[in-house]
């Protein structure tokens, strides 16, 4: 620690016994960043209420939760650290296969523990590959992430003795969650289980992105040159958030395996990486809810569009992507801005909007 530069004179002059008004205002302004808005509370109350209100839709709701978690994990690297990835399914797949193998060979029967182990496996893989995305342009990152995912899919395909290859990993039987709650045919247990996992991980992510660490990620994303010039070393932080995102993605993958008792090469495919990007883009990047809202829209759109034209769902995904880009992502992602503003009016969610007024 340096000691040879004395604190600025103004500081000792204004160092008061009681906090100065400016200090209080600043503390309040910073604290407001982390405050829950009514919009957020309503969102989660709404999500919880579906446990009782929509009991017939728990299977599709479980899928939505898993997509939401997966997209949330992509938001951590894309929305907060500005790293584009075309291979995020790699981590999803690692989690999916880890959970599947643990259950199939009865290595770890209890789903929650298995979920954590799958998350760790994904995290380890994320940590190792994070060094590949440290440097380079968007294009090299795209290619490298895509390459890693393709490589992993190829490995899984070749190791058919372990993964079941193109047929997928079959014969998985799941034990009850915490030894108490049996998975049922209607997906009630699966839904509540997934929703709880999502909520816990969301809370953690919310806390992290609101912390000084989270703020420094935004700084690295916003202006790497200036971030370095105020002493932020980008490398270790990108490694950290990339690893964290990999853990989240792996847990999402593991949830899918556990709730459907099946996994296949599809969980590692390019389509999955592209889809999760679409889910996140629909809801907007950089505010954690984007992935969750995107998942709801995506899954219902998928349901509706595939009912209309069963085989050509892919065409509509493509069209949505093209339209989103042509119209402008900010405008599309901002479609829920009026809602957010309404929330802000009641209690400032992202504080400081009004702090500028003298």
């Amino acid at each position, binding site marked *: 620690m340096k000691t040879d530069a004395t604190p600025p004179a103004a500081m000792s002059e204004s160092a008061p016994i009681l906090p100065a008004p400016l200090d209080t205002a600043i503390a309040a302004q910073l604290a407001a960043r982390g405050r829950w808005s009514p919009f957020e509370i309503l969102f989660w109350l709404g999500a919880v209420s579906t446990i009782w209100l929509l009991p017939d839709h728990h299977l599709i709701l479980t899928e939505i939760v898993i997509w939401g978690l997966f997209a949330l994990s992509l938001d951590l690297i*894309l929305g907060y650290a500005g790293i*584009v990835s*075309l291979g995020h399914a790699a981590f999803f797949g690692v989690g999916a296969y880890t959970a599947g193998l643990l259950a199939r060979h009865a290595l770890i029967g209890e789903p929650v523990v298995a979920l954590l182990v799958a998350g760790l496996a994904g995290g380890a893989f994320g940590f190792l590959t994070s060094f*590949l995305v440290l*440097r*380079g*342009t*968007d*294009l*090299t990152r*795209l*290619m*490298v992430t*895509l*390459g*890693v995912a*393709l*490589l992993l899919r*190829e*490995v899984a*395909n*070749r190791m058919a003795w372990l993964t079941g290859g193109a047929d997928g990993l079959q014969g998985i039987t799941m034990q009850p969650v915490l030894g108490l709650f049996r998975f049922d045919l209607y997906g009630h247990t699966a839904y509540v289980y997934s929703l709880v996992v999502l909520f816990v991980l969301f809370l953690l992510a919310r806390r992290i992105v609101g912390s000084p660490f989270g703020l420094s990620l935004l700084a690295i994303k916003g202006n790497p040159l200036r971030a370095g010039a105020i002493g932020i070393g980008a490398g270790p932080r990108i490694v950290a958030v990339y690893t964290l995102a990999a853990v989240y993605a792996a847990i999402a993958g593991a949830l899918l395996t556990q709730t459907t008792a099946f996994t296949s090469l599809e969980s590692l495919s*390019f389509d999955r990486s*592209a889809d999760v*990007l*679409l889910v996140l*883009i629909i809801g907007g990047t950089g505010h954690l809810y984007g992935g969750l809202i995107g998942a709801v829209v995506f899954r219902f759109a998928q349901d509706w569009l595939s009912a209309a034209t069963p*085989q*050509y*769902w*892919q*065409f509509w*995904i*493509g*069209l*949505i*992507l*093209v339209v*989103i*880009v*042509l119209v402008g*992502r900010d405008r599309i992602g901002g479609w829920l801005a009026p809602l957010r503003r309404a929330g802000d009016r009641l209690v400032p969610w992202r504080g400081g909007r009004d702090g500028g007024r003298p």
Partner: protein
Amino acid sequence: MLTILFDGIAYGMLLFVLAAGLAVTLGLMNFVNLAHGAFAMAGGYAALVLVNRLGLPFVVGLVGAFVFAAALGALLERTLYVHVYAKSHLDQVLFTIGLVFMAVATVDYTMGSSQQFIAIPPALQGQVTVLGVGMSKYRLMIIAVCGLITLLLQLGLTRTRFGSRLRAAVDDQRVARGLGINVGAVFGFTFAFGSGLAGLGGALGAEILGLDPIFPLKYMIYVLIVVTVGGTSSITGPFLAALLLGIADVAGKYYVPQLGAFVIYTIMIVVLILRPHGLFARGGAR
């Protein structure tokens, strides 16, 4: 051994023709066009319709493939792509993936999802033996045609007025604009021409690569490897990268089939990490 080398060269040359257009779009406008393979597919199916359904000669099919893909490229470039040039790489990727998905579904709907082959004339079937090495006539034809195209491309870029304008625009867009070069028009034409080449590659390659609706997804990575490994600063870089890739892929699949595409992907990642501007880029990695 020599047969593998021969097959690899044919495959590599095909990849080069498929990727050449992408190298230019990426180098010129810094535009990531993941949908490049869709134009190859368009060309392939155009040839299929002309030859198999309308019974026209194979050569007409090839020309038709080029013209159709080029026209499609020109149309989409003027109507859609121009709006995306200025956007971020992420937007470009989303946009072109969207186009790929639409292309895949459209072809699936109109042409069916099974793999199809273009009827090749009897003269190109079978093998010839040169110096004791058995070579397929069709692959010989591919090498001849692609070699000719490469030569013409090289001459076109270095000897013609358009070529020098294009190179000026690739080197420095602002300076090129200052010199009175209409960069937009140069790019539009190049895009169409590159799409046409891809279409020709798609038609030529149908016999070797197969032709089905997921063609753009299957070969997207190969085409991208050619471009990223070869760099975009010259035509020789992607050409050498394509040859290497073709030979490595054929040899890999023959000698170590259990590894599959593993080797290729690994090489790509390593090259990207060590030399982000491509293996053959001028000046190399900084």
